[in-house]
């Protein structure tokens, strides 16, 4: 197979389109995430939509029977108008905007809106691939695949190092459009020379002119009718500050973080934990401080408060626009603000804290679920001084816990009880768990006495509130609700609380769908039926195709590659915390691996059967299982091993594509590309949302190895 083609501009053009596609993907997914209020369920679904639309466009692109020249013209028109296409996608994301600020749009509407919004951008990526293949000849498929993947890796680096934090979304899309415009010129220059500049230039000028207006309109659609004081991107998302009179509202990616006038909420989350300890001198607060929590902690007159806030951008915003008492608290000499990963701090802390307060909101992603796992609680236990108390604050209910919420609370309770001998709970809208090595005296009279001793006069959490909160009748109702709930503890590598949090969020969006999903957890029948059906389908397919099933191989390779990437990223996040740049680089490394693998496979394709390449993926999956087993005991190992493993994953999955192209007698390169994307789409959704939290990382890697076995069996026939 030859990789060096007679039209190098085609490969460069596709590379530029690949880079542009990645930039557009990140920007548009970020917008959709903001409109769906950071719900990872939605992110997984939208990513799946992106991949499926791209796959569909890739297949559609093969329908017209064009020669190279016509394909080149089509490519020119497509890439030339891409700048406007990307802007159109950005504008169409407003379809997902809810009716009013902060409301959740209906799930089906979000999905429909994402299809409409992503269609222009995905069309560019999918059609560009197909037409580039046509324009340069079928044997060039692998070269095009390699070029696209490598360029996407580079674009990832560019975005995370430079563009993401400094440019607005509209301008990032203009940069992406510029890549496509340049590529269009490259495609048509040899034929049309200076005339080839017309369309791309016009599109770029129009895009550059419209971009500020589109960006501003989309921004405003996030906050209809609001007075926006500041919007700025940070490493962790898009931060916004709104003002309503004296009230300041802080949000990130559309998710409400806190407001400046919420003393009641602040009191309710920190006062009870502080009163449970007879004399909390050293306090560690993980999150929840900037909305007034820090101010409330200081009222109890501790000697030292360590406050962890991972986002320096948010701290800077609060420093200028936050409530006066919070700003004063941040400047208090007793307060030490640590901008680092809270889990790392816990792991390294000496047993010196009288009180550790962990805010554990309903996890929107696996990162947030790390604060509800056994490993986190064990680290916290080691950080406590003798007689110290760990308090975990999480959303609950004043009156009745629903099914998903009961499961989540049950999982947290079981996890705490597996670590601490004594665990108590005060159920409520903000439920407070406390855990200690010693039995904690939680009698309301004792706590009310401490209020008096400390000369505190809270507006909400006074003696009446304490008595109500700790009423045995309420505790008994709560215990009944969670008693038969989840008995599975949440681990870093098996974040059950994450799944249960997603189910809780799904209940808000669509109670019916949530009920159906929860039923799947309890009933084995659908799983057995699906396994039997898939087995029959497979056996039929394997028998039908004498030459094997390269489409199946491409789909499974794409899916397994995506799954293993997610496994490694979640493992890294769980152990090392969210390091934004590192994650971006890891993804880039993975794509570089794919490019390398595809190039190597293309070079030696004739000597390597497809089944062997698939076996390599299976081998990598088993290596990952082994690595995961030692990772918790060797956290340093993780940092060193993740990138090489990602390169291996990328390399072995990237190698499948060219081999599948060679092995296929029926499907074209574009079709196989589509299969690859479909597999990746399914994996993106199912793995991140369900498989990882349900099965755990090692089991997911094992399932991947088993699925690779399916692909091997399907392709074991000789060519």
């Amino acid at each position, binding site marked *: 197979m030859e990789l060096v083609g007679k039209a190098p501009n085609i490969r460069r053009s596709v590379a530029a389109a690949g880079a542009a596609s990645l930039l557009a993907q990140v920007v548009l997914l970020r917008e959709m995430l903001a409109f769906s209020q950071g719900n990872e369920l939605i992110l997984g679904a939208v990513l799946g939509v992106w991949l499926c639309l791209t796959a569909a466009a890739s297949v559609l692109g093969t329908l017209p029977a064009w020669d190279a020249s016509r394909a080149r013209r089509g490519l020119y028109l497509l890439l030339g108008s891409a700048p406007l296409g990307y802007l159109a996608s950005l504008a169409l994301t407003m379809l997902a905007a809810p009716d009013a600020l902060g409301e959740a749009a209906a799930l089906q509407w979000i999905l429909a809106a994402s299809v409409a919004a992503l269609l222009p951008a995905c069309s560019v990526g999918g059609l560009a691939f197909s037409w580039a293949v046509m324009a340069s000849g079928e044997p060039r498929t692998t070269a095009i695949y390699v070029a696209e993947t490598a360029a996407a890796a580079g674009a990832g680096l560019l975005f995370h190092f430079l563009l993401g934090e400094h440019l607005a979304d509209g301008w990032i899309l203009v940069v992406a459009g510029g890549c496509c415009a340049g590529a269009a010129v490259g495609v048509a220059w040899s034929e049309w020379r200076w005339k080839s500049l017309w369309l791309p230039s016009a599109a770029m000028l129009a895009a550059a002119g419209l971009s500020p207006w589109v960006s501003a309109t989309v921004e405003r659609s996030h906050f209809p009718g609001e007075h926006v004081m500041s919007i700025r991107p940070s490493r962790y998302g898009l931060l916004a500050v709104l003002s309503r009179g004296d009230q300041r509202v802080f949000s990130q990616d559309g998710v409400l973080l806190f407001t400046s006038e919420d003393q009641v909420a602040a009191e309710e989350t920190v006062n009870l934990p502080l009163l449970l300890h007879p004399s909390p001198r050293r306090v560690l607060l993980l999150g929840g401080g900037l909305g007034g929590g820090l101010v409330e902690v200081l009222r109890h007159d501790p000697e030292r408060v360590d406050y962890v806030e991972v986002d320096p951008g948010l701290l800077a915003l609060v420093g200028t626009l936050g409530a006066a008492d919070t700003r004063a608290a941040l400047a208090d000499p007793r307060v030490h603000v640590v901008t680092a990963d809270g889990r790392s701090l816990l792991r390294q802390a000496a047993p010196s804290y009288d009180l550790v307060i962990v805010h554990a909101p309903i996890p929107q992603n696996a990162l947030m679920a790390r604060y509800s796992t056994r490993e986190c609680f064990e680290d916290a236990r080691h950080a406590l001084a003798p007689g110290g108390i760990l308090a975990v604050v999480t959303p609950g209910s004043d009156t009745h816990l629903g099914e998903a919420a009961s499961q989540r609370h049950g999982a947290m309770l079981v996890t705490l009880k597996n670590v601490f001998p004594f665990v108590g709970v005060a159920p409520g809208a903000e439920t407070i768990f406390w855990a200690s090595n*010693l039995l904690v005296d939680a009698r309301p009279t004792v706590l009310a006495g401490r209020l008096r001793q400390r000369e505190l006069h809270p507006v909400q959490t006074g003696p009446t509130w304490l008595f109500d909160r700790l009423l045995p009748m309420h505790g008994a109702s709560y215990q009944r609700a969670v008693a038969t709930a989840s008995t599975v503890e949440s681990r870093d590598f098996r974040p059950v609380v994450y799944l249960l949090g997603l189910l809780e969020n799904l209940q808000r969006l669509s109670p019916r769908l949530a009920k159906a999903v929860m039923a799947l957890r309890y009933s084995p029948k659908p799983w057995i039926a699906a396994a039997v059906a898939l087995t029959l389908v497979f056996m039929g397919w394997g028998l039908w195709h004498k030459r094997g099933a390269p489409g199946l191989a491409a789909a499974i390779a794409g899916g397994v590659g995506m799954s293993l990437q997610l496994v490694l990223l979640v493992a890294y996040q769980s152990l090392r915390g969210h390091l934004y740049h590192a994650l971006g680089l890891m993804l880039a490394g993975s794509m570089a691996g794919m490019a390398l693998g595809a190039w190597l496979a293309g070079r030696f394709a004739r000597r390597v059967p497809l089944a062997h390449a698939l076996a390599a993926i299976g081998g990598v999956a088993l290596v990952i299982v082994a690595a995961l087993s030692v990772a918790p005991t060797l956290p340093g190992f993780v940092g060193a091993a993740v990138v090489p493993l990602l390169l291996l994953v990328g390399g072995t999955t990237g190698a499948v594509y060219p081999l599948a192209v060679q092995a296929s007698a029926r499907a074209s390169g574009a079709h196989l590309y589509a299969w690859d994307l479909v597999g990746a789409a399914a994996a993106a959704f199912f793995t991140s949302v369900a498989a990882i939290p349900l099965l755990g990382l090692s089991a997911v890697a094992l399932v991947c190895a088993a699925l690779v076995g399916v692909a091997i069996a399907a392709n074991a026939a000789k060519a």
Partner: protein
Amino acid sequence: MASDEQSSDRRRFLQGLVGAALATAGCGSSCASERAGRSEISTVVTQTEAARTAVLQGKPRVVVVRAKKVLTDGYDADAGAVRAMLDAGLVALSGEKNHTSALLRYFKPTDRVGLKINGLAGRNAATHVEVVDAISDMLARAGIEGRRQIAFDRFTRDLTASRIADKSRSGGYRAVGNDDAGHEEELVQMPSSASRLSRVLTRQVDGVLNLPVLKQHMLAGMTGALKNNFGCIHNPNKMHVDNCDPYVAEVNAVPAIRDKQRLVIMDALRPVLDNGPSYQPGMAAPANALLFATDPVALDTVALGILEGLRAKRALPTLAMLGQTPTYLATAARFGLGVNDRAAIDVVEIEV
């Protein structure tokens, strides 16, 4: 052409390698920046191995004081011998020169001291009144006058039957039953149950001197220092299932009980060996011993050994054979209330 293609191949290969190298280097630099972040953490708190490991500051000490002859008529004890045993025990436990200094290690002169006796089984198996009188006298010499001493147990009748209430006199200690003083309204929640605490404990004393009796117990296996604190709650009758485990440990983990108990002196002058905790003639045997400790779990562990030894002399089966092993000792150790490993206890035996 061919060389162009080859150079193009090499270029693409290098492109891929560069991408991979960048990723690795970038990750390395981000790890370096994480190390910078870690040094920021280190300005907050740092970890040492010693800090991480929970190390007991030395072994807990249990002093066993025996006298050749202390019991006189039946269950009565010789006051002089008892005083000598108390003196020796307190000195050996505390390392002080005399019993006054020893007691001042555990109680302040301004404290109100509760004497938690065991009067359940009546005169023949209750805490010896001679022991209570002697220790009360010693406390008075240490500055804690009799009016700030309260001998208490669940029922006034038990105090009367054991003659402790009889000794109640002006200037001397008071004897108060929980049925008289009452219990707190609020329940204290424990992992397996809930109870209301004696108001003597919660309102009338600052520190407690636990004076249990060593007895075999048909349900718990043994009653000693830990089980004696069942007398501080209103509903011990609900906690006699499952060998009283984990209830004994949980009750002792209640902060008001755990934190106020300063010293334990176990009455093992004539332990009940079988059919306990009630007394039956012939079921008790003289051991002529008093045990002293601040760690109630360690004391009970040593006492268990004494009980088993006495039972063996009577050819009685071990508690384990009867399914009466006091498993609450291990639970209490797990709760951090003390040490139940005999090898990790410093046992001092004294004969007076």
